[in-house]
């Protein structure tokens, strides 16, 4: 155990000082990290895509062991930034759908990599043998390890479901529908992203608890247990909202994340401070002290640590500036330009909302707060992320925005025909409940035959009847079943004809 602490102290010496002046958590660290399994998907990227257009995610999204490695990356590693945005703007709709798809795949891969790191940390923590006094994160503490492992299950499911939708999007052959399907990955991606971040934070608490148990015999085990219980309680509601994968709940949980991270940071700081006091009282060796300090150095919350958030509301976003290399606070890189570029694509396609990306940037910038605050980023940063009135409009009429968020959901593919659609591949992540749209009452009534818009008497134009007649007659014509892709492509055309926005949200079936 002493050797252990010594090793930690050595690593601390080797990397700790450097971290103050050197920019951590950016650059191509992912590709340098010794985890081959996280390397990947960009291999399949089209040739015109600069490989690894982004690969620097917020440091908060990756496992702690990786962060240690990252800190050793040289600073100029990140500067090669392709002018991807101009390239994307030059292409047509299909091209932009392709680049959006790539961004979704890249983002999903990144979250998967982070999740693997978190899982590995859980496994290591669970496998650590008890120290000579018999202390470790087992026994009564096992439940806290289990809590983490339980979350991993839904996170994998969310990422898997995003992958299914992305695959379907690549095959559908209609640009609008492709973007519609890609937008459906948004809430899943966002939930997995922030869920993984929370889980990484939970790993930090477990590391700290482990360090306390091993190094602070005078610390109260009961108190530690209760502290972890409280922290778990803080995370629980957010994790539940994220796990629901419901677009509105995910969005609300996401935008409240800086506040939650503020609370967690404060908890972490308090727990660590109390441990230090106790160690001091007991005249503990410096190594024990450093073992506890060490946990902070590798912590997800490190950026917020230098100044624990005030309990009063503060103005967020202060000091965040967009520069050519990325978003900076002073001389520190918060997120790289590559990451910003990926997010810009996702934001502009309506996959991820600006407030969600904003929350990530704030957290990464250490700008967490104890109180709910207005979370707008400085304009320069927002512009770089692709924020614009059109994008906001899209999110208002689309998923999770104000205005439309109360409008009732309606199935685009008639629920009465669930079986018919199931037989044509609308199952699981692609079942008809996934294809609901929010519509105002007047619009909904109009497409179901109400209102006075139908000038011609002899064509009822009722949506459900029209779409089923179309598909059934087409099958008669073709002499075979229509495929899921053919149906989706056709439905996209008719949605266009009826002025139904291509933004799907999952609804409940009867």
């Amino acid at each position, binding site marked *: 155990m002493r050797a252990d602490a010594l090793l930690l102290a050595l690593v601390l010496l080797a990397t700790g000082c450097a971290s103050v002046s050197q920019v951590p958590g950016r650059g191509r660290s992912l590709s340098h990290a010794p985890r081959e399994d996280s390397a990947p998907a960009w291999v399949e990227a089209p040739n015109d895509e600069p490989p690894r257009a982004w690969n620097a995610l917020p440091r908060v999204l990756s496992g702690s062991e990786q962060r240690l490695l990252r800190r050793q990356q040289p600073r100029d590693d990140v500067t090669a930034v392709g002018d991807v945005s101009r390239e994307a703007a030059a292409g047509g709709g299909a091209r932009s759908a392709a680049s959006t798809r790539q961004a979704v795949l890249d983002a999903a891969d990144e979250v998967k990599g982070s999740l693997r790191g978190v899982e590995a940390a859980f496994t290591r923590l669970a496998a650590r043998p008890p120290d000579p006094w018999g202390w470790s994160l087992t026994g009564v503490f096992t439940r806290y390890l289990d809590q983490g492992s339980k979350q991993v299950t839904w996170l994998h499911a969310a990422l898997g479901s995003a992958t299914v939708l992305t695959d379907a999007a690549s095959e559908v052959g209609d640009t609008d529908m492709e973007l519609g399907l890609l937008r459906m990955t948004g809430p899943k991606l966002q939930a997995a992203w922030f869920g993984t971040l929370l889980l990484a934070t939970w790993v930090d608490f477990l590391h700290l608890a482990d360090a306390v148990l091993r190094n602070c015999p005078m610390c109260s085990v009961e108190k530690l247990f209760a502290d972890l219980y409280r922290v778990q309680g803080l995370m629980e509601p957010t994790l539940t909202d994220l796990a629901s994968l419901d677009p509105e709940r995910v969005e609300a949980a996401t935008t409240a994340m800086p506040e939650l991270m503020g609370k967690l940071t404060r908890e972490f700081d308090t727990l660590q401070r109390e441990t230090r006091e106790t160690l001091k009282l007991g005249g503990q060796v410096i190594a024990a002290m450093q073992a506890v300090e060490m946990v902070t150095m590798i912590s997800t919350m490190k950026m917020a640590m230098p100044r624990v958030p005030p309990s009063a509301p503060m103005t967020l976003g202060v000091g965040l500036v967009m520069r050519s290399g990325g978003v900076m606070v002073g001389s520190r890189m918060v997120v790289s330009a590559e990451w910003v570029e990926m997010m810009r694509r996702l934001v502009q396609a309506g996959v991820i909302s600006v407030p969600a990306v904003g929350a990530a940037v704030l957290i990464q910038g250490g700008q967490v707060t104890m109180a709910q605050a207005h979370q707008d980023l400085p304009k320069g940063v927002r512009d770089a992320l692709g924020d614009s009135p059109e994008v906001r409009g899209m999110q208002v009429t689309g998923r999770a925005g104000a205005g439309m968020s109360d409008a009732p959901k309606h199935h685009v593919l008639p629920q009465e025909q669930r079986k018919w659609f199931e037989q044509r591949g609308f199952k699981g992540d692609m079942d008809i409940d996934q294809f609901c749209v929010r519509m*105002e009452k007047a619009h909904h009534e109009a497409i179901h035959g109400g209102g*006075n818009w139908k*000038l011609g008497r*002899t064509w009822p*134009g009722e949506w459900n009847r029209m779409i089923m*007649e179309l598909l059934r007659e087409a099958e008669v014509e073709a002499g075979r079943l229509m495929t899921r892709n053919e149906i989706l492509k056709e439905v996209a*055309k008719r949605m266009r*004809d009826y002025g139904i926005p291509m933004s799907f949200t999952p609804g409940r079936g009867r």
Partner: protein
Amino acid sequence: MSGGDAWRGNIRARLYERVRARGYDSLTAFADARPAVPLYALADELGRDDVAAVQVLSGLLYEAEQRKQVTSFVRDVLVRELSERFPNGWPEVLDDASRGEVAMALGSWTAYTPDTHKERVRLARAALRASPPPAGWRPLGPDDELLRTLLPDEEV
């Protein structure tokens, strides 16, 4: 089309106001001046954000009902449908994919046809299946010869 704008306000008044603003006294005249242009493109021209293609369709049907030219209207619907899907004319090789596309075109035609004419359209489709049009067939208006054979006027 971003959302519900097409379904707010007085739809009929908006439609005719836009048609008149473009110098036509009827929707039919506006559409006739744009032969074989898909319905959604007509709608976009009248109002990108607040006119839906099915409103144009219904308006054209209304005028056809008044003029007793519904059969011609029905042929016109197919013309616009085909021009969207097969800008180079009827597909040369009918593989599985293009067979599906043809099927959807004819299914759409039926679904966008008024109840009074659905049966005749089904018969026309059966005739088309029995003897398919030559590759490259690209009707440019409701008076296309082959189309008129498939679905002759009966009102006049």
